[in-house]
């Protein structure tokens, strides 16, 4: 298959320009170029939108069908694999697992076995292709170890991706303390479990000079801390998934285990604070948090079900709701989904400029469909949005000039 392509008729959504216009895109040898188009195979994208492929920071699974359906052309893979990505060989293997459809960028485990005890071989893993270091699904409770990891990673110029939930405060909790958890009889942890963890890691980041990235921030007080830290000049960034932007704890309903997430769904006030944090730029990027689980992990009592959701296939469609609700413009959304992740983690992509990789998503932002867990592309259909009507269908994904779909 050729890595040369001419895409005609699409409306371009360039994260770096608010103006959207129609223009042809030329890809030669996998890279966006210009010049003669005579010999190029043509992809007609009339009536569709074209943007840089989505770059998904912090997915738990290499799930190519789901990613392609969601318009994702590159993904940073969490170290929470089996076995955990805590040595160079495993990182190297993971880096090639998605080719040619999706570039997988492994994230190194911060501690051996993700156990929070000893520092993993971060430097060797960087050489093997790791683009960042992460604490995994868990917070590292040992502040001394966390400071050492940050100091060490800062010298290697690797960002630290951390999970912001104070482990002792969370305990066995499966929901956020409040009326919903109370009436359902679910054990809850207060929302400050998040801000408490953020506060510590911000101080450690300031002390060490490391770039700390909170994979998901979901509470009003968490956003306040991040906002203040950015003003103070601390190297901090954060992400969020569509779930915490569009759903509150009320979605748990009658113990729907697809809504069991980590961190758990929050109050409506926190959800509105998250929307505001997208609007004012406190949130740097939107990710899928893709964590597919089959029925054996989800068809259980709420507290026994695995946390996590299938998010890749719905990432673009759900995020487009933010544009329709006038929270962000379409180019700004593509900044959050593509350009910012590329810039913050030093990845190629996120741009339509000449010389950028020919990684593109071509979509119809208005086409309606209904999210259905039973037919969702990918390894599992555990979406908390099961049954929701949405708009936005990925028509084509182009990776390095090759048409993936």
């Amino acid at each position, binding site marked *: 298959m050729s890595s040369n392509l001419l895409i005609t008729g699409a409306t371009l959504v360039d994260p770096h320009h608010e103006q959207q216009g129609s223009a042809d895109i030329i890809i030669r040898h996998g890279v966006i170029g210009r010049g003669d188009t005579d010999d190029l195979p043509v992809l007609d994208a009339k009536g569709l939108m074209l943007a840089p492929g989505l770059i998904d920071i912090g997915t738990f699974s290499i799930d190519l069908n789901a990613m392609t359906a969601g318009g994702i052309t590159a993904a940073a893979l969490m170290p929470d694999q089996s076995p955990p990505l805590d040595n160079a060989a495993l990182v190297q293997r993971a880096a090639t697992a998605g080719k040619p459809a999706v570039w997988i960028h492994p994230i190194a485990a911060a501690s051996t076995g993700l156990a929070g005890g000893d520092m993993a071989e971060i430097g060797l893993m960087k050489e093997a292709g790791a683009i960042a270091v992460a604490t995994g699904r868990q917070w590292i409770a040992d502040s001394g170890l966390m400071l050492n990891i940050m100091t060490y990673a800062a010298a290697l110029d690797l960002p630290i991706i951390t999970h912001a939930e104070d482990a002792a405060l969370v*305990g066995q909790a499966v929901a956020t303390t409040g*009326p919903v958890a109370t009436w359902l009889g679910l054990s809850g942890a207060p929302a400050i479990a998040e801000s408490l963890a953020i506060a510590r890691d911000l101080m450690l980041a300031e002390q060490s000079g490391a770039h700390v990235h909170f994979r998901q921030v979901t509470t009003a007080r968490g956003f306040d801390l991040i906002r203040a830290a950015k003003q103070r000049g601390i190297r901090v960034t954060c992400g969020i998934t569509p779930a915490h932007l569009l759903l509150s704890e009320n979605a748990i309903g*009658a113990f729907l285990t697809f809504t069991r997430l980590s961190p758990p769904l929050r109050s409506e006030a926190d959800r509105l604070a998250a929307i505001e944090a997208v609007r004012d730029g406190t949130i740097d990027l939107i990710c899928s948090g893709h964590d597919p689980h089959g029925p054996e992990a989800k*068809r*259980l009592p709420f507290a026994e079900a695995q946390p996590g959701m299938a998010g890749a296939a719905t990432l673009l469609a759900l995020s487009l709701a933010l544009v329709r609700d006038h929270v962000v413009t379409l180019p700004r959304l593509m900044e959050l989904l593509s350009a910012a992740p590329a810039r913050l983690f030093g990845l190629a992509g996120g741009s339509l400029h000449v010389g950028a990789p020919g990684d593109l998503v071509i979509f119809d932002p208005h086409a309606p469909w209904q999210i259905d867990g039973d037919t969702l592309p990918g390894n599992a259909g555990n979406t908390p949005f099961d049954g929701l009507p949405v708009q936005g269908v990925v028509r084509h994904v182009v990776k390095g000039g090759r048409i993936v779909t």
Partner: protein
Amino acid sequence: MTSSSHTPSAPSSGGAISGRALFPHKHLLGIGGMAPWQIQCLLDEAEQWVDLNRSKTKHDDRLMGMTQINAFFENSTRTLLSFEIAGKRLGADVVNMQVAQSSTKKGETLIDTAVTLNAMRADLIVIRHQHSGAVQLIADKVDCPVLNAGDGRHEHPTQALLDALTIRRRKGRIDGLRVAICGDVLHSRVARSNILCLTAMGAEVRLIGPPTLLPEGMEQLGVQSFTNFDKGIAGAHVVMMLRLQTERMEGGFIPSLKEYHALYGLNRERLALAETDALVMHPGPMNRGVEITSDIADDPACSAITEQVEMGVAVRMACLDVLTRGRRGVEGWA
């Protein structure tokens, strides 16, 4: 006295409500979702079984030929026994399945168990499970009515119904009474179901307990919380003590049983602060000398604790009867 002075009325379009319209639920999963007149329907139905249970024969054959499976995933003696007696007195074939630990160790999931019970053509399944929401999960997978005998911290609806029946019989009403629910509310499904039931029936509910054992969000139903026992109990018509669930006390909720008894145990001096003829209740089993002193628990003048056990059988008979009417082809309940 057997009827309430306060009669929450069903939405009526002129004609009398009867049959299925009186109690339209397939299962009994919780008090939440039940309208006041539906609660009242079950309480009214229970009265006849109180009378039967006090008679010589104690038997009725209306559930003859029906199979009732009591699937208890959490240890229980009195609730299991109560459901077993209720089923047998109505003529059902009752089978007990104590699955406390065994099946999960063998790796069978709850859904598999539900499917198995369904394949055995049970006509009624009574379930207790240690996880909130587990009973609903099973109810979604089986064809027959499911009764929740307690799921995690979520609900224990028959306990709330038997408590309501006890109060109604002793006090003549529920509407307008001040009911203090005292102790470990956080971990208590009994408290949740009782709050829903009693507020629906018009009572004023107060919660009393250590601040660490009072959950958030209770004020949404107009329920007031007190951390000072003496203030909370003042003027109460009913004092409902909860069992201190010592098995769920990991994590430092209270300093010691001794301190708990000193601050939150019910004794004569504290009871004197309530209304003069206040009714004392406890869902059992009691931790004597912890949440309640023996002289109160054993004093028939104020304690309704043994009567609660008696009402439990009657209320459960009412629930078993009402929920199987559709299957039994009772007129108007198809």
